[in-house]
């Protein structure tokens, strides 16, 4: 009788102890041959990156345990885990999340053969992360509705665009842009610009893709977003959309290039295997596939841009310190102050 009534208690004890924990039993020997599995925290979505991971698995014989999530939330998770993180490699949608993890000394310094592949502006200054692909900030617009194209991001505070454009203030790519803005033109001007934007009655969206969808539907005429969303939305809808990417004048901050990137966790015992994955992702043939499949820019010199868009060198991208993007505290405070968060 007693046994039967404590079943729930036993069930719980059993549950707690029998939980499967796939991340234990790490291989302590840091050599490529001994590594059979790697744990990846991926802020890049499965639909984009899974084929690349599969190719690496086939090539290397290393099984990847991939945890998909939002880049910033994964960064927050790694910060909470600290030195107990089960992750070996962190792949992020943007440089800011990597910078924050690097700043907490949770990433190792990457070897020279990886960092020498890329121009220095696409690397962490301390070599703790490398860029993998480039993503250009653009304005997306409906060519039938917008005759006078903006020449600078500053133009969005002008009355002719009042109420006609969309932004995604909670999205990390928008916030990275605000951070770069402060880094380049100073706090006062950056705040003035953002207040000008808020005063110009933009529509707010949760995601960049929703901005592009809204332009296609005719809800708005323009929006600040990343270059690849027009391809993504067209693919998702299964048809052509009446939205194009526009670039600002040469050197305008609105054309900034952010990167998706990767870093290896300091708590990982499989650093060389993790490095080999980064090396695979930076290889020229892999990079060309990124351009063709995910419509992103390759950061390697001499690789052409996505079809229908200018090459990376021709965008007229401003010089932006990607490492500065980790300092989101000020950006967040500003967004809070003007009421966008």
């Amino acid at each position, binding site marked *: 009788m007693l046994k039967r009534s404590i079943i729930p208690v036993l069930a719980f004890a059993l549950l707690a102890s029998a*939980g499967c924990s796939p991340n234990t039993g790490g291989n302590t020997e840091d050599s490529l041959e001994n590594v059979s599995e790697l744990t990846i925290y991926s802020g890049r979505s499965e639909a984009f990156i899974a084929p690349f991971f599969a190719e690496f698995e086939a090539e290397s014989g290393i099984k990847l345990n991939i945890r998909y999530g939002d880049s910033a*939330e994964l960064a927050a998770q790694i910060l*909470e885990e600290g030195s107990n993180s*089960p992750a070996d490699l962190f792949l992020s949608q943007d440089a800011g999340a990597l910078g924050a993890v690097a700043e907490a000394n949770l990433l190792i310094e990457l070897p020279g053969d990886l960092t020498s592949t890329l121009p220095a502006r696409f690397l962490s200054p301390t070599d703790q992360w490398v860029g993998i692909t480039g993503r250009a900030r653009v304005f997306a617009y409906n060519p039938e509705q917008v005759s006078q194209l903006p020449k600078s991001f500053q133009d969005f505070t002008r009355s002719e665009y009042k109420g006609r454009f969309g932004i995604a203030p909670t999205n990390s790519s928008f916030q990275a842009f605000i951070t770069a803005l402060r880094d380049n033109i100073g706090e006062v001007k950056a705040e003035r610009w953002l207040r000008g934007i808020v005063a110009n009655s933009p529509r707010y969206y949760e995601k960049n893709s929703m901005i592009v969808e809204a332009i296609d*539907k005719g809800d708005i005429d323009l929006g600040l977003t990343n270059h690849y969303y027009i391809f993504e939305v067209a693919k998702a809808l299964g048809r052509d959309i009446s939205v194009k990417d526009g670039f600002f004048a040469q050197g305008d901050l609105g054309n900034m290039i952010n990167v998706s990137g990767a870093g290896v966790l300091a708590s990982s015992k499989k650093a060389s295997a993790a490095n080999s994955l980064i090396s695979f992702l930076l290889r020229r043939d892999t990079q060309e596939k990124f351009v063709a499949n995910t419509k992103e820019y390759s950061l390697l010199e001499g690789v052409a841009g996505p079809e229908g868009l200018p090459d990376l060198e021709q965008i007229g991208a401003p010089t932006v310190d990607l490492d500065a993007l980790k300092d989101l505290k000020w950006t967040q405070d500003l967004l*809070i102050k003007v009421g966008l968060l």
Partner: protein
Amino acid sequence: MPSLDIAAESRIEAAPMKKTSLLHRGSLALTALLLALAGIPFFYLFQRASGASGSEISALLFREKTLSIFFNTFSLIFLVSLGAVLIGAGFATLLYAVKITRSALFLLLATLPLAIPSYVFTYSWIAIFPWFRGIWAAALVLTFSTMPYIFLATYAALRRVDLVQIEVARSLGFNRLEVFTKIVLPQIRGAIGASLLLVILYVLSDFGAVSLLGVDTFTRTIQNLYKASFDRQSAAILGLILMFIAATIILIEERVHKKNIASNSSVRVQSSASLITKPMAKLASLSLIVIYSFLALALPAYVLTTRMIANFQEIDYPALASATFNTLLVSTFGAIIAIAFALPLSWTIIATRSRFALFTEKVVLITHALPGVVLGLSLVAFGSKISWLYQSVGLLSFAYALLFLAKAVGNTRASMEKIPPILKEVSLTLGVSPLSTFRKITLPLAAPGIWVGFLLVLLTAMKELPATLMLRPTGFETLAVEIWSASTLSQFNQAAPYAFTLIALAAIPTFILSRPDRIQQESNHVEKERWRE
């Protein structure tokens, strides 16, 4: 009412129960364990917020935005409460008052929206009506998705209303409205209040609908702060405020509830009072339910189907199968753990009325109002130190249990409270041990309530997303996670098969919940079996 007197007397006698019994000590220990574990998120929030300077806190709180967050949160609570009570209690009353043959179908129609996650629901509406945004939109979505809780609770309470009282009132010349307001309403108010509390706490914690519809509530702001910064301090401060709001609402409900204790008559349950008999009135009542189910069910079904057909992609059946299995596995474990805690907590509250147990119950209720991301991160901070536990099915199930325990405790406690104490007393005087008495008397008699609690936790856990993202084992994808990962790409067509499967899966417990007759019958059956032993 003689039954009440007996109950009152025996409660006095029951009070000095042996405090050394295994049942007593075991329940107390489990309740204490629960309190310690449920304290983790609160401890985490205090710890994260404690570093904040006064100026940082005032910069966060004394701004225009704070006003709008408060305004949005409370407007949403008000609108959803009003809508859910009007529709939920209204439908329950209609179905109770109308005598029809196909009542099971209408019960199911009114309950089925429970199976649809609020984010799927919201997405469907946006897909059809691009202008569908803002607080009214959020209020509508949340009303539709929470209404069934009030509906089920009210319907169950109505079935316990003493029909003799109604007949007496009618014979004394009361009209139908007077019968309802003077006889029926006082007896169902408690049930409406208790389910409304759960609805309000849910509204506080909802992220899916408010984020897609652009309504800045506390939970959305907290989630966005986490996304915006890797400094988790501001989010923790807002999390604490949310905690205090939830606590205040719980205390208010308790005050109201105390004035509201309805008599428990021991009449047989009745599924219909046949108050509405005119064909036209019947038709009107039922068409309301049909219109509602069209908006709440047919619309999402239509969007999902067209999305799936419009851009049909190869369905990844193995992935779909494993996500389905994982969802089922982890939500079932979550519901089992929730019941494993709800039983000792309810028992301790009823048997001892100790402040400690009542306090634990309130902590459990407050936890229900916490955003999933807060609970998730707190368990990351706590769990990552224990590598065998971290990112395990066990920890994720436990997170579900903690998040949704409130749904189980209410039902378990209420069904245990309804057991006449005299039954237990007789059993104890006959020399049966407290533990056996619990097993032979309390458990079988409370079984329907426990079962309802189990199903509610199961159902809600299936749909949970934020905590799942953080706590699931790496590579362990649930249906909710698959829907999320497809919809971040605006590729809802890819999410459609997962959304369909999730709704179909969640429809099973929903279906059982919509059939109170069956639940009751089964328990009566069990009861008889027990007595025969």
